[in-house]
């Protein structure tokens, strides 16, 4: 494990820190300033631009990714705090031969977006939600997705998409409710 004890030598304005983590199953090592967010590292250093920067202040959810399987906001996560951890982004959901994740497919089928900017965050959040509560009610889906804002107002389609995957996982007909 990399020694992460940063220090600021006399006359220098900053210290860079080496961070080693896994992103979508691949090991990655980056030398960054401590102030670098996970979001900026993904987009600016690794060209993983599927994760979107909306508000950059933890209010919109567009930057949602999974760390060790839990949904978090990458704009408020410093990359230095991700050392040794597993990050999954929207790019990591697609199967190797290009097949969409069931939640991605459902967003397409049920019109879960309009402009698409919030969609990667919505989908990552929905994937985590369906792991957290496989039997979430419609009200619980709305509550559990409240951290993802959609300015186009595609909320009904988003709930329809999530409900269909929930029902498919539980063996009933998608969209039956």
């Amino acid at each position, binding site marked *: 494990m990399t020694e*992460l*004890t*940063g*220090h*600021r030598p006399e006359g220098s*304005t*900053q*210290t860079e*820190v080496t961070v080693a983590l896994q992103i979508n199953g691949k090991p990655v090592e980056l030398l960054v*300033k*401590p*102030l670098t*967010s996970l979001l900026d590292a993904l987009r600016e250093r690794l060209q993983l631009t599927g994760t979107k920067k909306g508000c*950059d*202040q*933890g209010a919109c*959810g567009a930057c*949602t990714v999974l760390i060790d399987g*839990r*949904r*978090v*906001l990458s704009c*408020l*996560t*410093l990359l*230095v*705090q991700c*050392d040794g951890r597993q990050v999954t982004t929207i790019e990591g959901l697609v199967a190797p031969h290009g097949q969409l994740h069931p939640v991605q497919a459902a967003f397409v089928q049920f019109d879960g977006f309009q402009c698409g900017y919030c969609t990667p965050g919505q989908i990552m*959040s929905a994937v*985590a*939600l369906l792991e*957290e509560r496989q039997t979430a009610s419609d009200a619980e889906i*709305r*509550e*559990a*997705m*409240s*951290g*993802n804002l959609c300015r186009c107002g595609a909320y009904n389609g988003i709930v329809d998409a999530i409900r269909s995957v929930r029902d498919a996982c539980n063996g009933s007909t998608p969209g039956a409710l």
Partner: protein
Amino acid sequence: MRDFAYVRARDVGHALGALGERANSMLLAGGTNVVDYMRTGALVADALIDISALPLRDIRVDQGSLRIGALARMSDVASHVSVKKFFPVVSEALELSASAQLRNMATIGGNLMQRTRCPYFREAGFACNKRRPGSGCAAREGFNRFHAILGGSEHCVATHASDFAVALIALDAVVHLESLSGSREVPLREFYRLPGETPQVESVLQPDEMIVSVTCARVPGATRSHYLKLRERASYEFALVAVAAIIDAPQGIIASARIAFGGVGTVPWRDGDAEQALTGCAIADADALRNAAKSALRGADPLRDNGFKVDLGRRALVRAVKAAGGGGQ
């Protein structure tokens, strides 16, 4: 964001040592508040001491008492089976806070130490005595619908943002602190400081101390407690008014009540007057509860835009007491 040095703490001792090594160091846990406010410039630190990986995440419920490690995540406490069963007010307050993503990141120690969401604190273009002592308070004459009606001073009327702290204050929780010179316990009711002349000083936590855990002893009625939060949208919003109600009413008559308000005070607001007035009331007697609620929020001193909080708070109290006491909503 301004550059800062980063130290990953190996253990509590290392964290406390690093904290003392350099002036203007801050602890970093979940980062949801610190990273956000460092980006806006509301917080400035030369070094962040990262304690997020330290093993202070235990959640224990034992014979009706509760102990939560400072670095337990909000989501882990909220979904903990025994917390839900024995301290529903805690679980509900957490579930009604922030969003699922933020609850997965934010720690309970960080939650207690979070800074106000007063928009004038956040934005560097406005006067704010918390951000720049002596610069004035833009909220007093500004848009102050969300501000405090209790505990304010001419220097600050910002509300305390935590729901969790409101539930804990009602439960007489104790905060456990450590520094290199030892450890001490502080009742949460004595932990927060009213703004007075020095609104930038928000608690009795010293610069060389850190929170390591929070505990609550067994409290009558805790298993039937309730947290009611009223806000301007259905979810993912701070409270206009919130009520933590712990009601012990074995035969439908209130034997003891513990009441705390959120969204109304500059600190989480325990309301002894309301508790006294509610004692002896029948849960089923709505008139008696409404009458008792008139004693709540005594001394409220509303600003231009937030006078509605007095009536809203009293009505919320009645609803929360009914729900906690088993009388339905």
